């Protein structure tokens, strides 16, 4: 009997990656057929689900053995092998370990924070869990076909989540309706994923023509090392990937879907959007683009670096003159994702580790910011920084955490953003002094708009119309304190994440 339960545990251990993806997706399916419950009960159920997925993601992260490295928790089931060789393959690498952890944290936060959703509760949580499961799938897939499937699964629910539960805002000189935000987001992202799909098909056809048809990462990587893909081929396909994935990371000039999406989206969705969805693009570039198409990467990386630094400066400067809290954070995300892009574009191990750490750090930080902005908006019914003022008097909890998030955003040492950005700077300065100088300047520009935001809305004399607003409720408190603790923990002890990231980066570097 003991042996049986041991082997059961082993079995369970091995399919943990699968469980992580299947659980939220299955829950979404079950919700659809469940009799109609109240919104509150769907919230409770999906919170429980996300607590479990959080637990599993922590477990996966902790169990990833940094000494062995490589792909762990592998799980492969052949799916279509009639000369096409598609298999459902999962696996955890050093990079995806921290990304899975990020999604576990943000998904849990987004679920807990969405307790106030009244309208069509079931549909909301079905979509939210689908999104979350899709993101887990992207990070864990080891097969291009399913990678793309999960990618679409993660992106598509955004449309409905924004269009149905979002909010429209009138900015005086122009308006942004939720339908517009949702439509634009969807159009841009679908156009981008067409490029990715073209790239994936091209890769497949190339392998097919050489008699070794496959979609599996490991196999493709081996083929690539054997010189299957010519330089011209890699140049074309990598360009498709770079633009396609780049768009999802807010690559300039295809970034406007992101701030407008934030403005329209409800809080929980904004958290997932900026916290994990934008990371999928950078993850694709690093984990697929660079590994399978290293020569193409070398060709295009200068361009990506230039575009990335445009992201950094342009995003920061745009944020400086915004008046809506969500626009400020939206453009701030554009700016911070620029760091991820230039970090990836360095193609050296320090820059890429920095990029991955920045993905994690920015995901947590921006999720925290959206929790707090959502809380402020929920109470004050405005996000205009010229209307809000002196909030710290009435909402000390929200404001103190907002200040922490803000300082993480401007790269204060002791919080996670600093180490990530610093590593990216180190990676970049090995390539180009001037790009690095501009990147450092970008961090100083961040200070300008973050401090402006704090000075306008949080401190100063309080307006009488805002003086009796309540502070954070218990869920907002739990989520925000937890997210802030992660920022501090990673900032003080970056080795927590860097140990596994380093291992993942080593795998990538060996492809170059």
């Amino acid at each position, binding site marked *: 009997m003991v042996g049986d339960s041991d082997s059961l545990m082993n079995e369970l251990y091995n399919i943990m990656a699968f469980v992580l993806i299947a659980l939220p997706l299955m829950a979404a399916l079950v919700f659809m057929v469940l009799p109609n419950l109240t919104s509150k009960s769907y919230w409770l159920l999906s919170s429980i689900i996300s607590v479990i997925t959080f637990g599993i993601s922590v477990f996966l992260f902790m169990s990833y053995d940094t000494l062995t490295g490589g792909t762990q928790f592998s799980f492969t089931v052949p799916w279509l092998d009639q000369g096409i060789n598609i298999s459902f393959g999962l696996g955890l690498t050093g990079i995806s370990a921290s990304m899975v952890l990020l999604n576990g944290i943000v998904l849990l936060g987004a679920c807990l924070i969405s307790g106030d959703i009244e309208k069509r509760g079931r549909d909301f949580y079905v979509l939210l869990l689908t999104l979350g499961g899709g993101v887990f799938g992207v990070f864990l897939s080891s097969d291009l076909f399913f990678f793309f499937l999960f990618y679409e699964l993660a992106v598509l629910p955004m449309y409905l989540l924004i269009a149905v539960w979002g909010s429209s805002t009138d900015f005086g000189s122009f308006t942004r309706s939720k339908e517009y935000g949702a439509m634009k987001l969807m159009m841009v992202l679908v156009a981008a994923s067409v490029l990715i799909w073209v790239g994936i098909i091209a890769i497949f056809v190339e392998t097919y023509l050489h008699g070794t048809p496959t979609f599996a990462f490991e196999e493709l990587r081996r083929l690539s090392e054997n010189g299957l893909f010519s330089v011209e081929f890699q140049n074309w396909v990598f360009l498709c990937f770079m633009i396609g994935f780049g768009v999802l990371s807010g690559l300039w000039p295809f970034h406007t879907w992101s701030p407008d999406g934030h403005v329209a989206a409800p809080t929980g969705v904004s958290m997932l959007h900026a916290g994990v969805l934008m990371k999928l693009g950078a993850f694709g570039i690093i984990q697929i683009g660079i590994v399978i198409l290293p020569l193409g990467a070398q060709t295009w990386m200068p361009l990506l670096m230039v575009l990335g630094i445009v992201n950094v400066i342009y995003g920061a400067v745009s944020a400086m003159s915004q008046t809506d809290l969500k626009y400020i954070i939206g453009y701030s995300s554009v700016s911070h994702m620029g760091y991820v892009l230039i970090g990836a574009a360095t193609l050296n191990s320090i820059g890429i580790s920095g990029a991955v750490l920045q993905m994690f750090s920015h995901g947590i930080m921006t999720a925290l910011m959206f929790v707090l902005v959502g809380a402020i908006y929920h109470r004050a019914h405005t996000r205009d920084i010229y209307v809000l003022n002196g909030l*710290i008097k009435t909402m000390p909890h929200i404001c103190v955490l907002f200040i922490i998030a803000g300082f993480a955003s401007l790269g204060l040492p002791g919080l996670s953003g600093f180490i990530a950005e610093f590593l990216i700077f180190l990676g970049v300065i090995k390539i180009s002094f001037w790009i690095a100088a501009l990147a450092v300047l970008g961090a100083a520009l961040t200070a300008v708009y973050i401090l402006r935001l704090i*000075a306008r809305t949080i401190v100063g004399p309080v307006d009488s119309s805002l003086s009796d607003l309540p502070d954070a409720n218990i869920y907002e408190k739990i989520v925000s304190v937890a997210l802030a603790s992660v920022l501090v923990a990673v900032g003080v002890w970056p080795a927590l994440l860097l140990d596994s990231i380093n291992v993942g980066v080593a795998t990538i*570097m060996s492809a170059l």
Partner: protein
Amino acid sequence: MQYFWLIPVISFIAFIITSLIGNKILKQAWIFPMLAIVLGLGIYCFGLTEYLQSRFDLEHCFRSSVTGMVGCNYSVEWFTAGVRGADSVNSFLGFTVDPLSLSVAGLAIFVALMVQIYSIGYMKDDPRFAWYYSVQALFISSMILLALSDNFLLLYVAWELVGLCSYLLIGFWYEKPEAKEAAKKAFTVTRLGDVGLLIGILLIWIEVGSFNMSDLFTQVGSGEIASWTIFSISGLLFLGAMGKSAQFPFHVWLPDAMEGPTPVSALIHAATMVAAGVYLVARAYPLFVQSEAMMIIVSCVGLITAIGAALICCVSVDLKRALAYSTISHLGLMMLSLGAFGYTAAILHLLAHGFSKALLFLGSGNIMHSIDDLNINRMGGLKSVLPATTILFCIGALSLAGIPLLSGFWSKDEVIVSIVHNRNIVFAISSMVLVFLSGFYMIRLIIVPFFGSPNRDYSHAHKLPFVMLAPMGVLAVVVVLFGWIALYMPGAPASFGTFLFYSHPKNFHLEPDIAIITLVITLLSFGFGYLIYVKRFSIFQNMRIKARLIIEIVENKYYIDELYQILVDKLVLPAAGLVALFDRILVNDVGINGPGYVTRTVGSIIRHHITGRIYVYLALMTTGMIVLGIIWLGIVIL
């Protein structure tokens, strides 16, 4: 010494405890920070004795071939990023104990202790008493870390954290619009300088492959680094130092920083944090001395700052702001000294100035506490109301003016000696002008508020509690004795110059001719001040009217703040607005909405041929066939 890392850690723990439970024990919130700093002082004294007695035979201590001083290093790994062994970056949590770090850390701990005791009285009625003490604890923690760190990355970490504390404490009364603006300004301006510092650190890593200071200095010493690189790295580091130490043109934040509570001004904006820039240049001195051009730049920036700020100080009517300009001026003097190879002199002056200026700020805190006003023209005759404060303030002021036997005299003398010896006549004369100005503004700050006839009714003045006067008394004793001890204390170290030095120890001694000249100039400035502010000679009144324009320019701080404001309002913000507009109209409305609009428009135009009438389709089909036929024929024939 190996336990020095406990000093910042204990204070950090005090910060966390006080932040969490401070409001529950509001009036007793000072206990944990104070306990932390007393413990810190104990560890420090223990380590100092150990260093002095046995630095030559301890395991981790060795004499640096570059600086000639004995340093003890302790470190553990912090993190590694990248592929281990191949292309990676290793960073360490390491600290170094050498005379320089011991001096600055000692100053920080001691002044912080005095200020924290003082604050029990000064801040006791503040609703955010607990918050005040927790940030103070965080500040001590980061300031000690800054002084002790043995690598540039850790130094940068601490550098930013002290900046954060400064930001939080300047904006302590954040309901006041001036306070929140001042906090924002301080952080933003210093952050601009930090861009240079951070890029400098990145360049150091590129050159040396580590952040460790002694690695850098060894390589610099062996001549492996190109002189142009040395110049650019030291220049970039100096940008950071200029921001932190409020050197021209980054000086604008410090006077505004006086919006914070006065004890904070004493600790952070007079004695410790603002001196961090000077400390950085001293720390990286092996780098700076390799570049003659950089040394001249340091001297020039120091001189311009010192004279410019001293002039403003002579006309400022706000006591705290006047002291702030005096701080800027003295920081400039330290930079000037460093640029003139007066390494030891600069650090000695850093310490002497730290003690004296802390005393002066606490004195102005006393005035603020009792009459709630800082305009010196509305004071006068304070000596009968605040006799103890008057004496203590005078000790600090006379020390900085350079009156013999007080600590400022010795350090200033050493600074002037190095300037006269190592720089040309222009610098020498300018430094004499500086001596005159600093004597003049100090005597002005003594005469106008404390002596003469009262300009207001003092009957409502608050009494000063003992807890505020006692730490000032201790500081005053140190101000009186410090220079004497540092230079002539019997036993080891024989003099400060054999304790803290660059490349070779030197015995400090008074140069009588220079000492006499500076003393005469100082006394002259006192006489001048006496004639203007006590005797009120009409000739000076007339001069004042004639020189109205110049005085107005100085009173308006040379319009530098206005210039920056114009730059921000007319250049930066409109540019940002333009980018945002560009983003919305061109990138979004044209670039993203455009294709959508075109698709829709084209669709709505070409759908008109879908009429549902058979003969229309038939006609279109026939036309198409004819056109295709013609094309085919054309191809065949041609």
